[in-house]
């Protein structure tokens, strides 16, 4: 029998109100998703949900039959950031996803997930991290699928000290988090200082589009994070993903039609629907940006190939 392609809902990258976050995860509880990654990964100032709220939400989603992973903050700067990280590392109820080397330092010695922001570009680096206890690997966004297969070959996967094979989870849908800064570009756009930002990013549920002078949608400002305007989409890459030994797909939330996106991935990867009709369905959804897939094919990330 065909093995299930697990669907993971990646961490919410945007700043949504508490109500919107709650409603979003309630809809995900009813979706085909297997796993949800929870937590604020972008900005320490975003506090609509605190760690206790995320943990409560995690408990509810587990009750609903989902696996839950807690994500750490991507840029760790202050002692307060480290305190939050320690609280996440000290709980043992949920798996934690490391988003920087501070998290690796605190999580080593037990199972954890490697986020795409840990720089693993070769097999030796993956072996180094597996030796620390990593059980799941989300490759850097810019790595193509052939290279992913070379680093964690399906025929001879990298194993952790317990002899457990590291699973590969590929970022398969959503605007890509391409860069992080200490500076808030949303506040800069509104001529506000970061410390008095008025949480203006709450107004942009899919970020703030940055266009070239000739009107091309190029990037998206999401607070301190810069994303691609294009939506990375590997719905049509099932054979290449299978060949690369990918067992899990990461779908990154957007504010509109996301439940339908999850449904289409489930249909194509697990229910035998053809990719073409899945892509037609996505194109009909009025998603916030054009579809791209260049990185997976060893091209510029903003390229699209049918």
């Amino acid at each position, binding site marked *: 029998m065909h093995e299930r392609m697990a669907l993971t809902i990646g961490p919410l990258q945007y700043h949504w109100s508490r109500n919107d976050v709650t409603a979003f995860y309630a809809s995900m509880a009813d979706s085909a998703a297997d796993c949800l990654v929870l937590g604020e990964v972008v900005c320490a100032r975003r506090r609509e949900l605190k760690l206790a709220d995320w943990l409560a939400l995690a408990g509810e989603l587990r009750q609903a039959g989902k696996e839950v992973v807690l994500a750490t903050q991507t*840029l*760790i*700067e*202050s*002692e307060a*950031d*480290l305190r939050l990280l320690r609280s996440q590392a000290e709980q043992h109820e949920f798996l934690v996803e490391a988003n*920087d*080397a*501070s998290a*690796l*330092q605190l999580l*080593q010695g037990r199972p954890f997930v490697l986020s795409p922001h840990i*720089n693993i*570009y*070769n*097999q*030796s*680096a993956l072996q*180094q*991290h597996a030796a620390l206890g990593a059980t799941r690997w989300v490759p*850097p*966004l*810019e790595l193509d699928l052939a290279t992913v297969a*070379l*680093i964690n070959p399906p025929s001879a996967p990298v194993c952790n000290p317990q002899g457990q094979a590291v699973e590969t989870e590929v970022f398969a849908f959503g605007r*890509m988090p*391409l*860069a*992080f*800064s*200490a*500076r*808030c*570009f949303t*506040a*800069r*756009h509104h001529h506000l*200082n*970061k*410390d008095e930002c008025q949480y203006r990013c709450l107004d942009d549920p899919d970020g*703030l*589009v*940055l*266009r*070239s*002078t000739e*009107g*091309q949608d190029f*990037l998206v*400002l999401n607070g301190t994070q*810069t994303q*691609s305007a294009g939506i990375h989409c590997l719905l049509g890459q099932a054979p290449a993903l299978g060949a690369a030994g990918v067992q899990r797909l990461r779908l990154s939330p957007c504010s509109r039609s996301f439940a339908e996106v999850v449904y289409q991935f489930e249909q194509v990867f697990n229910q035998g629907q053809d990719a073409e009709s899945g892509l037609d369905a996505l194109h009909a959804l009025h998603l916030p940006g054009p579809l791209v897939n*260049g*990185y997976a094919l*060893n*091209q*510029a*990330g*903003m390229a699209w190939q049918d």
Partner: protein
Amino acid sequence: MTVSYARKPQLVCPAGSLRALQLAVNAGADAVYMGLKDATNARNFAGLNFDLEQAREGVAHAHAKGAQVLMALNTFARAQEPERWWRAVDLAVEMGADALICADTAVMAYACREHPQLRLHLSVQASATSYEAIEFYREHYGIQRAVLPRVLMLSHVGHVLRNSSVEIEVFGFGSLCVMVEGRCALSSYVTGQSPNNAGVCSPPSAVRWVDKAGAVQVRLGEVLIDEFGPTEPRGYPTLCKGRFAVDGVRDYALEDPTSLNSMALLPELMAMGIAAIKIEGRQRSAAYVEQVTRVWRAAIDACFAAGNGQGGRFAVQPQWAATLAEHAEGQQVTLGAYSRPWR
């Protein structure tokens, strides 16, 4: 009142060529950093960097004058040919480099295994912004110095330093990355090539300048990065320093074309116990390297002397500031994240 600094920070200068290396050493650099002619370093540009023979000559020159040579091996080994990176580690030892500046755990693991005596510095490309992150690399790979990303403010730098057992190096002058180093894929989104995967950002091979009705358009790949009027100064199209429209407002949406200059903060940096100050710019001319090195040598010496009660209070001399401004992007300098005017 004297403050009596515990240590005088090393001045670490860029060497994109043997000529630049020699001029930097002669102008007073305590150390120079250089890379090989390939993608193993983050300034992988045509006409730049060293072959083994040049590297040996550079090391001989530096060592004769009491200066160190640090080899930058600060990209991530390509999965298809990691041997190229291992070979570069071997070459660092063969040429007599005093330390290796590295970011990839695979490179560090190889260096620890094959050359345990080789001193390792954690590159800024490793994105270590906290003392826990630095401790991770010390515990596993024995790094002896960490270079901090240019996104931390001064109080965070001090906090890292007080809680770290390794030496801390910070950037003093040069082009400014507004994104955390090692965590930026903007360049590969447009061109397929990035600092992490190819040692380049906004590579020249992808740049096109197009004259259009008096204006000049500059494209990176297919994206229009900026458009300059006939009399506007034209900067290199590093994509985060282009002009873009957000909500219909065209501006430098990510970063103005300016350079970092932290010289005014030397007293604070020295009081913290910073081990080294790095000058950016292996891609810049030998004249840049010589003049910027000379000015920073004078400033570090003056600041240290002032701390020991000699020569009065430290102040940035107008002629130093003028020299640095001449070499800055868009002739503008900023204290960058250290002071965070945007905080």
